[in-house]
């Protein structure tokens, strides 16, 4: 086996094991669920706006390190952004925070980002 096994970067695993903003909003403006058909993973993203600003965001669902880790990281990233800024986020921005495995497993890592885009496209 290789010497210093690091599968994902520490940060991602930490987010997976201690997800931020996990839970449900009682009265969200948007609630979108995305699923990865290859494994049944599913993430629901809920957003509350204050004017054009994302005032509250939560997610729930089940999935792998990358889908859950990404959701946790993403909710942190978008908190307080306005809608336009949030829509400008790209998958590469996520990869920057998550490393190469996310790039290799785009289907997993982009689940919550896709939910975000769908949610806000309805704005």
């Amino acid at each position, binding site marked *: *086996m290789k010497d210093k096994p*690091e599968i*994902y970067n520490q940060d991602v695993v930490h987010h997976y*094991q201690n997800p931020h903003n996990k839970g449900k909003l009682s009265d969200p403006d948007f609630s979108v669920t995305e699923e990865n058909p290859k494994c*049944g993973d599913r993430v629901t993203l809920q957003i509350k706006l204050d004017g054009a600003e994302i005032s509250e965001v939560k997610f729930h669902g089940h999935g792998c390190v990358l889908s859950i880790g990404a959701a946790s990281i993403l909710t942190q990233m978008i908190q307080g952004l306005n809608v336009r800024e949030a829509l400008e986020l790209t998958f590469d921005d996520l990869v920057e925070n998550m490393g190469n495995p996310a790039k290799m*497993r785009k289907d997993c890592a982009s689940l919550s980002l896709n939910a975000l885009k769908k949610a806000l496209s309805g704005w």
Partner: protein
Amino acid sequence: MLNVKDVKKDFPVLKNRDVVYLDNAATTLTPDSVIQSLKNYYQNLGTSVHRGIYQLANETTEKYERARKKVADFVGSDSPREIVFTKNCTEGINIIAYSLHHWPEMEGKILVTEMDHHSNILPWRFMANGSEKFQLEYVDVTKEGRLDLEDYKSKLSPDTVAVGVPGISNVVGTVNPIKEMTDLAHERDALVVMDGAQWLPHRKFDISEYKVDFLTFSAHKMLGPTGLGVLYGKEDLLCRMPPPFGGGEMVLKVDRRKVKWNDPPQKFEPGTPPIAQIIAFGASVDYLNELGISEVNEHVDRLAQRAVNKLSEIPYVDIYGPKEGESRGGLVSFNVEGVHPHDLATALDSLDNIAIRAGLHCAQPLHEVMELNSSARASFYVYNAPEDVDRFIDAIKEAKKILGGADER
């Protein structure tokens, strides 16, 4: 007994890359002799097949037909006309489904099993959806991944047109009782379509023993080149079946209104065939014959059993399909509690270059029956050694240590 060390030497990928390749149920690696055969075609022949037009084409045709004969021999058929080359196993099943669909006398029920690969489900579904003549029904599979034979018998009615069944499940590795199922089907004049994708690579198959009417498999899952599959069909059926796809070479005579089909197999092979791949697949068959298919079988069985035994000893691992000691194909599907199969695959890859598969393995209905979201799968072949299994087991334990701390979410 296979000498794995020697076998490994024949596979360039294993020399060039540091990999423990355990995704053989998806596609296998390619030995030197097959690569050499491909090279030989492109460097010394390069033409299409039409006997008699010029010397090069004649040489190509001879090599090409010799390969067809080898494949016929390999499945125990005494007529190369029973061997139709396809682009993959999936195309073979689509050909049968569309042919039966177009066959005027055909009408009634199609039975497939809940453990079939999408390739042996969807073509039949398309056929049944597109027509009032056909209805599709599923034979039940138990939670342990075994076919429910009583259910099969009860659903096998006199109006059953065809039965689709995998020789070996690509998820749970169950070896199905093909002989018994075929006899039962034939008693009711139903045709049997065996999906042999996971059987042919490492288990002796003789058509005179199993008597199925159609058999499909993938060349690329048995040391052959990509882009090639085989459809075996009983000659008599192939002669009578209407061909579903049109094109060059599959007709003898075309005028504005009438068409006279060519004989099988050409009748089912419109357009320019995958010539290089067919010739090279002859070399794959030679290679397997030299190893000896029963030696291959024994070797792959032993690896699968070793994996099952060692996985069974790990308390946080769930194994699907036949239990320890029971007959199974050369693969094992499982889950590690608290570690998502996709994470496990990534982990095994980055920890020790171990290549396994994760997901639904194109068998969503079976995952539904077993109430699983997805699973991980390791599958073995001639170039895998017992130590590969051990490295795989060690890496699972390591992955669990690193990733398995999280609770279920």
